[in-house]
């Protein structure tokens, strides 16, 4: 049956996993080059580095998702070779990937026990399933209902499902790839507690993360990678955000945020929403002026993305009006919004932004083809030049415009989306989590892009779960709670504490 063997309990100290001289290439590009490191039992071991530094690849090799070209994996001192994730799971190593895998048609509990359901005579024993789920959730300290459908589950809850799934498989080593990237601050904090509890209970956690503060707070040891090579492994106590950053980049980064340029006093309002209601959004009104970056903060699920989609006509609106540059938005669909000058960078670049298998050029020019064509025929030279121009502007160097966009790194994929918007030249940009899952260098570049776009007179509505990002970039911050815009802060009042307090509102502690 599908019951998995319980790994033998091992000593709580000493080496859990040792990697010796691991190398792996993808199509000629060396993702990992002779990387060696040891991971102690029950420790929280962070892997940090820029996108493309090889940290995700390393995590996947640990979990059997990828097999190394060269090198040896030692588990409790014993050489092992994982040919599939299943083999790794059998030895107690589970990967929680960045892209979560939740079966939408199954309930939360069924998702957790997928493949290991308690059964009786071939049928799933539903009551036992529910009981085991409740036990498991209680052990992990999660408030999560087992009977909720997987469909429509918030990212934070999906994450919990993945962790519970790993726990119920008796995982002794959990590799988490960017677990908090999609989480709001409080959800991330809660996850940190879960991770600490896991480690205290003897589970080893390998944490792949872009959030250096998180790493510094959480990890026992840190391994820094750069361009597929090991820089060093050191106790986290000996590292600071600055030391990690400079090792990752090979240079030290100055201030994280570009200087804010003041909005001209009489700048016109380019985006105006009045009494906007849509699924998940109630009676939202806001203004964005030309040259202004307005931050939209709030907990995950507070309606930020829903508001963005309603503004851009990506979602049906039940009441209210939207005006772009003084003209009321009429017509249905994002097409109408775009025509009026309102463009959006969606929350998930892979699912909603890019055509992964298509060439980079087609991805960039998609929203501007009307301008790049005569009588419906695409002017290919004009297209090539225009695409090269905007790619240069966003700082993406590509081997060939005809290469699939999937060959770009995450940060460059996001920049390619910005290139699409730049080429289109809208009046207002709604950017939903534009720096999610991109490396520090790309983050900085995107900050500069947003700032320079605003300086050129674009109105920007910036949604982010990273409060620092919003406070560092925005001229003004709106905070959403339960589908409504609950508070607005500007100037001195814009503090992380104030934003958080408004995001939680009266329900705090409930």
């Amino acid at each position, binding site marked *: 049956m599908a019951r998995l063997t319980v790994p033998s309990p091992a000593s709580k100290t000493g080496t859990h996993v040792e990697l010796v001289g691991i190398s792996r290439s993808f199509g000629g590009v060396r993702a990992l080059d002779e990387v060696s490191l040891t991971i102690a039992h029950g420790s929280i071991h962070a892997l940090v580095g820029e996108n493309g530094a090889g940290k995700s690849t390393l995590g996947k090799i640990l979990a059997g998702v990828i097999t190394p070209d060269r090198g040896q994996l030692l588990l409790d001192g014993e050489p092992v070779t994982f040919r599939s994730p299943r083999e790794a799971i059998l030895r107690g190593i589970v990967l929680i990937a960045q892209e979560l895998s939740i079966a939408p048609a199954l309930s939360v509990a069924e998702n957790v026990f997928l493949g290991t359901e308690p059964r009786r005579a071939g049928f799933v024993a539903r009551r036992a399933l529910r009981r085991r789920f409740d036990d498991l959730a209680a052990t992990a300290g999660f408030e999560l209902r087992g009977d909720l459908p997987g469909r429509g589950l918030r990212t934070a809850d999906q994450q919990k499902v993945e962790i519970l799934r790993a726990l119920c498989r008796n995982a002794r080593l959990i590799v988490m790839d960017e677990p908090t990237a999609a989480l709001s601050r409080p959800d991330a904090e809660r996850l940190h507690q879960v991770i600490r509890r896991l480690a205290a209970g003897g589970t080893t956690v390998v944490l792949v993360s872009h959030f250096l503060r998180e790493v510094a707070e959480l990890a026992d040891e840190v391994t820094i990678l750069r361009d597929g090579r090991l820089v060093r492994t050191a106790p986290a106590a000996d590292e600071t955000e600055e030391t990690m950053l400079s090792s990752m980049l090979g240079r030290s980064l100055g201030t994280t945020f570009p200087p804010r340029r003041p909005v001209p006093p009489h700048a016109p309002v380019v985006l105006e929403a009045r009494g906007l209601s849509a699924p998940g959004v109630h009676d939202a009104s806001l203004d964005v002026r030309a040259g202004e970056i307005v931050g939209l903060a709030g907990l995950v699920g507070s309606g930020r993305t829903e508001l963005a989609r309603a503004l851009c006509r990506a979602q049906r609106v039940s009441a209210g009006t939207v005006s772009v540059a003084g003209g009321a938005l009429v017509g249905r669909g994002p097409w109408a919004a775009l025509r009026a000058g309102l463009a959006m960078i969606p929350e998930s670049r892979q699912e909603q932004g*890019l*055509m992964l298998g298509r060439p980079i050029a087609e991805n960039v020019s998609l929203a501007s083809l009307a301008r790049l064509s005569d009588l419906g025929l*695409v002017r290919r030279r004009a297209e090539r030049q225009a695409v090269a121009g905007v790619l240069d502007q966003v700082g993406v160097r590509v081997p060939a415009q005809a290469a699939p966009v999937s060959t770009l790194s995450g940060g460059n994929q996001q920049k390619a989306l910005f290139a699409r918007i730049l080429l289109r030249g809208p009046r207002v940009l709604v950017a939903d989590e534009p720096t999610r899952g991109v490396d520090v260098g790309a983050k900085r570049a995107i900050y500069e892009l947003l700032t320079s776009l605003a300086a050129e007179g674009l109105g920007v509505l910036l949604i982010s779960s990273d409060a620092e990002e919003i406070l560092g970039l925005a001229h003004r911050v709106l905070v959403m709670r339960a589908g409504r815009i609950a508070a607005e802060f500007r100037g001195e009042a814009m503090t992380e504490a104030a934003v958080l307090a408004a995001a939680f509102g009266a329900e705090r502690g409930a």
Partner: protein
Amino acid sequence: MATLATRLRRAGILYPFLILFIVLAVSSGPFFTKVNLLDILDQQASTLIIAAAGTLVLVAGGIDLSVGAVYALAGVTAAHLALFASPALAIVAGVAVGLGVGLVNGVIVTAFRINALIATLAMSFVVSGLASLVTGGNLVIDYSHPGFADLARTSFLTVNTSTWTMLAVVVALAVVLSRTTAGRYIYASGSNAEAARLSGVRVPLIKLTTFVLSGGAAALGGVIDASRVLSAQASNGETTLTFTVLAGIVVGGTSILGGEGAMWRTVVGVLFIALIGNGFDLLGLNPLYEQIALGGILLVAVGLDAWSRLRQP
């Protein structure tokens, strides 16, 4: 590994096609003659027309299983009208019927958001029934109205008009797919509908258009074949044609998942299947094995596609 897979995927059926062509040219005397080759093209004219439009449907992320039925309905409609009206009217009416069915398909799929596979399958039954209604179950014979044959059988520069029509349609649709903004929107709709939508592409309109074109092409194919043989019946084409067309597109390497594909692939795929049939005829092989060979090749083609996708970095 990845490079081999990528190369195999890019070239697709092209090498097997060339090899088969050379083998047939060497092993069968009558194969490599102008008469035989033109004959193959003429016989495949309707299939290629339908497959060319079907490529647009597939690339846009849809599928049209009603083409066989539309082919039959348009054929009998035109053949029937040709009995008492002018051939031109018969032809126009036949094609119009197909465009109409395509429009209905498109509306069902886009406005009512019904899965294209199910929608067009259901429509294929409706359309087949309509075709039987038109004929009353009989064969429609136009031998006494030879003017109707002009559409397919007029010779121009020693090549039949049916072949010329096919070339015109295939080239026109190839240009649409690879050179126009509409073509880009078709790829975008099939590759990532949500991304296309957020980039201002009116995805439903694009998909609807591909279904209308597919219906029109299926009807044109039906009318051409009815004109060629001066007769038509409601059971013409049907499912066999639908699946031959799909097989040709897929063997060529256009993905059934949408967003990938090209017109030359479809042409090579359809002709590859035609060559197998022609080869079995010329070499006097048992035609029973033809279908088995065809099915095997189809599986290999789809398998290769899936395999190379898995291998992509």
